[in-house]
């Protein structure tokens, strides 16, 4: 039988049994569509997180006090109770002198009440330097960011987040106003552009003041973090070693800090979310298998309904192989068509979700499209074999004389 004839014959058989065909198509397209939509969700979440991280710059090093290692046991220090040595502004100053360091922002964080004209609000207060703007990519909507000064100059100025501005000043001008943070007064010199959440830190809700001022407000000489960016990614590891050595020297030979490459965290998250996406795709693939079983069922019914037809085919000289091929073609045709519909439905679904959540970019990864279609066709083949074989083996005499 010619290929074109086989195809058009199959098409005729499928369009004749409209209900049967559309049910099978529906099952298959739901399977494929769910793979596409679910992977789009997973991939969207991954891209969102990756994007959030990269907004902080990928050539970022994070220095934090303390060392991840196991202490205790018979060591006497376990009884004394050893706390990590603080990171200080002097440490930050020393690190800034390393040539490969481009920007360095010491970070102090705390919560403090801020008040203006009788309105009070408890917000996160960051102490940092001008470099913070470059390290965590932030843009200023009005005024300016912290001025370029030494870490030790306690200029009484602050930059406020968009929400803080709205809450305290409403529509009035904020720049130049004096605001009370804890028991000190700061002049507002800038308002941050609204950027939404950045990895759990809502900069819209916070206030940024010079690092030394924050240390005074919170009455603590230690730093929460030191954020460093380098010229490029290649110098990250070199800089990391230099920072570790430098602090070791400054802390009497004790390596009591941890330096993390930000892109290492990124890679971890990336991996976790990729795995999640795969897992979700796997779950969706189960619905493909279910669709396959449905196709098998309906094909089996179809074979028994078309017994007489199959008997006749044999009588007019169709070989068992030819009959098997005809039914296999039907199964593959169905699953291909189902996969095609599924891709379209999945695409529309993804589009719908994207419209609903415009912040997150939902894109189905290319492998999901291909694997969904491949799996759909494979299911068609696998679950088509049994009915096709049954049709081919049918005894023509029984088939023709059955009433």
């Amino acid at each position, binding site marked *: 039988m010619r290929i074109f004839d086989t195809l058009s014959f199959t098409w005729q058989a499928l369009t004749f049994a409209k209900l049967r065909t559309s049910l099978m198509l529906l099952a298959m397209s739901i399977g494929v569509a769910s793979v596409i939509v679910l992977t789009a969700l997973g991939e969207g979440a991954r891209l969102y997180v990756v994007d959030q991280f990269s907004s902080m710059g990928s050539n970022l090093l994070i220095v934090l006090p303390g060392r991840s290692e196991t202490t205790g046991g018979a060591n006497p220090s376990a009884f004394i109770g050893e706390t990590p040595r603080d990171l200080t502004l002097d440490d930050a100053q020393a690190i800034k002198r390393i040539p490969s360091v481009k920007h360095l922002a010491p970070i102090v964080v705390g919560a403090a009440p801020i008040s203006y004209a009788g309105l009070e609000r408890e917000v996160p207060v960051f102490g940092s330097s001008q470099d913070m703007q470059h390290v965590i990519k932030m843009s200023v909507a009005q005024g300016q960011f912290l001025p370029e000064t030494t870490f030790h100059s306690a200029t009484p100025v602050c930059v406020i987040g968009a929400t803080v501005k709205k809450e305290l000043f409403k529509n009035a001008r904020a720049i130049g106003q004096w605001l009370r943070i804890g028991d000190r007064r700061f002049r507002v010199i800038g308002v941050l552009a609204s950027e939404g959440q950045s990895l759990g830190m809502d900069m819209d809700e916070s206030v940024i003041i010079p690092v030394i001022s924050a240390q005074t407000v919170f009455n603590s000489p230690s730093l929460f973090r030191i954020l460093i960016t380098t010229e490029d990614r290649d110098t990250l590891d070199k800089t990391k070693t230099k920072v570790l050595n430098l602090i070791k020297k400054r802390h009497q030979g004790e390596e009591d800090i941890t330096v993390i490459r930000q892109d290492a965290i990124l890679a971890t998250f990336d991996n976790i979310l990729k795995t999640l996406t795969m897992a979700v795709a796997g779950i969706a693939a189960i619905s493909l298998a279910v669709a396959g079983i449905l196709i098998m069922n309906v094909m089996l019914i179809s074979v028994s309904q078309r017994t007489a037809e199959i008997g006749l085919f044999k009588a007019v000289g169709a070989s068992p192989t030819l009959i098997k091929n005809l039914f296999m073609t039907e199964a593959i045709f169905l699953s291909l068509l189902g996969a095609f519909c599924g891709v379209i439905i999945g695409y529309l679904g993804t589009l719908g979700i994207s419209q609903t959540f415009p912040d997150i970019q939902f894109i189905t990864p290319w492998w999901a499209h291909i694997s969904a279609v491949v799996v759909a066709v494979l299911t068609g083949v696998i679950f088509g074999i049994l009915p096709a074989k049954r049709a081919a083996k049918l005894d023509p005499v029984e088939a*023709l004389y059955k009433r």
Partner: protein
Amino acid sequence: MNETQIQLDNITRTYQVGEEKVHALDNVNLRIEAGDYLSIMGPSGSGKSTLLNVIGLLDRPDTGNYFLNDTAVTSLTEEQQAKIRQQTIGFIFQSFHLVPRLTAAENIELPMLLAGIAPTERKQRVEKVLHNTGLSDRANHRPDQLSGGQRQRVAIARATIMQPQILLADEPTGNLDRKSGEEIIEVLETLNTQGISLLIVTHDPELGRRASREIKMIDGKIQSELHNKQSP
């Protein structure tokens, strides 16, 4: 005209019906020459249809030898038998067995479609046959839009479109009224005069007498054979 086309030697075919073994064919010997016209008669369950199906390679005998054009066909594989069936044998059934979703023309075309004959040739041959059988104006009708006689004419056209040597008809007039039945038999007899071997299974004694060889079967055995004078 006198070479042996079909030779059955000691053909036996048994069915298991519940506990019982039924001898549908019991040691049947039969020789048919090219162009012969046989009627096979007998009561229900006498093995008439089984004989037809064995000759048509739809059923396999349990024992015995079957030579078709000097080929021992019983030992062939199913695929090889299908090929022979396609090229040498045409079937006509009591219940027509037309494919309901296909038009008359498409039903006639079906064997050629399965055989992989080129579309242009298929079209030509179908048109010719439709014209010869006077079904041209019914070409695009589905079976349920045709009368019984028309359906059987379509079935005959389908059975002969591959130009077989043997035509096997199982109660071809069983579902037809007298007039249409008569017409169908005339079509079949015309084909026989053109050289095709014709085997008709029937209950109708009048029909049986029309054949040059009239075979009576009882309990799977050929009981008698009458040679009638060919009525022109």
